[in-house]
């Protein structure tokens, strides 16, 4: 944290990302080792009952992690978790945010609990998560 100890209610994480393209999904398939064809092969996705390919949940969580470590040094993160609330479609423009919900003492150090969300351009929540960071 660069700006000292945060207060409950402070929004310390905020980042917007460019629209998700098929190209990005192909790159993520290779870069992440997640070769599930449902994210890159439209024929496979349709056979599985989806109208098109869709983003890897972990790509979206990767963006949320990026937004988090823009605000907090990676070495300060004690836990990071999320629920994948909805499928993230092609073209989605994601906004990641994190707000301090609690200041705690845990494991012999002062920590903060953050509520994290990722929403698309329509305000639909894609990820709802939490992080615990050392202060």
């Amino acid at each position, binding site marked *: 944290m660069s700006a000292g100890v945060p207060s409950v209610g402070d929004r310390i994480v905020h980042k917007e*990302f*460019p629209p998700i393209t098929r190209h*990005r999904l192909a*790159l*993520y398939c*290779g*870069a*992440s*080792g*997640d*070769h*599930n*064809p*449902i994210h890159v092969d439209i024929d*496979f996705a349709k*056979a*599985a009952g989806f109208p098109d390919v869709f983003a*890897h*949940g*972990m*790509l979206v*969580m*990767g*963006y949320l*992690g*990026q937004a*988090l*470590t*823009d605000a907090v*040094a*990676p*070495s300060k*993160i*004690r*836990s*990071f*978790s*999320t*629920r*994948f609330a909805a*499928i993230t479609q092609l073209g989605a423009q994601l906004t990641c945010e994190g707000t301090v919900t609690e200041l705690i003492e845990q494991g012999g150090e002062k920590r903060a609990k953050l509520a994290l969300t990722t929403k698309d351009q329509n305000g639909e929540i894609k990820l709802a998560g939490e992080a615990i960071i050392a202060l």
Partner: protein
Amino acid sequence: MVDQSAVGREFTPVTARVEPGRLRFFLDTLGETNPVYRDGEAAPVPPTYLFCLEMMDATVPFEFLTALGIDLARVLHGEQRFDYHAPVVVGDTLTFRPRVTGVTDKKGGAMTLIVVDTPVTNQNGVHVADVSRTIVVRNARPS
């Protein structure tokens, strides 16, 4: 359908090295420009990268799905959690030991949630993290 008998099932441990070139590909893919990750030796890895390392270096891709008889096309990612206990940096060699810790039916059996917990240790035997994923299986309707 996967049932309680799956709880406790363990899968082949995965050993993965944090290689700078592969990490750079991941960073570029996410448009990650934070200099902390490009610090050369001893650069930390991004918070979700442990999940990728396990998949990249698995000798049997999607082993737990195959082992439990789950069709890849019916799987969605439900939840993901990381608990970090010690730093993971470029050059580390990590071992992942995945194990099923929970099976829950939802919506009258239309979906099954499967929890796989994976402790991660480094080349010095230090327990660096715990990774937990919850998979949602969309079960086929009986015909």
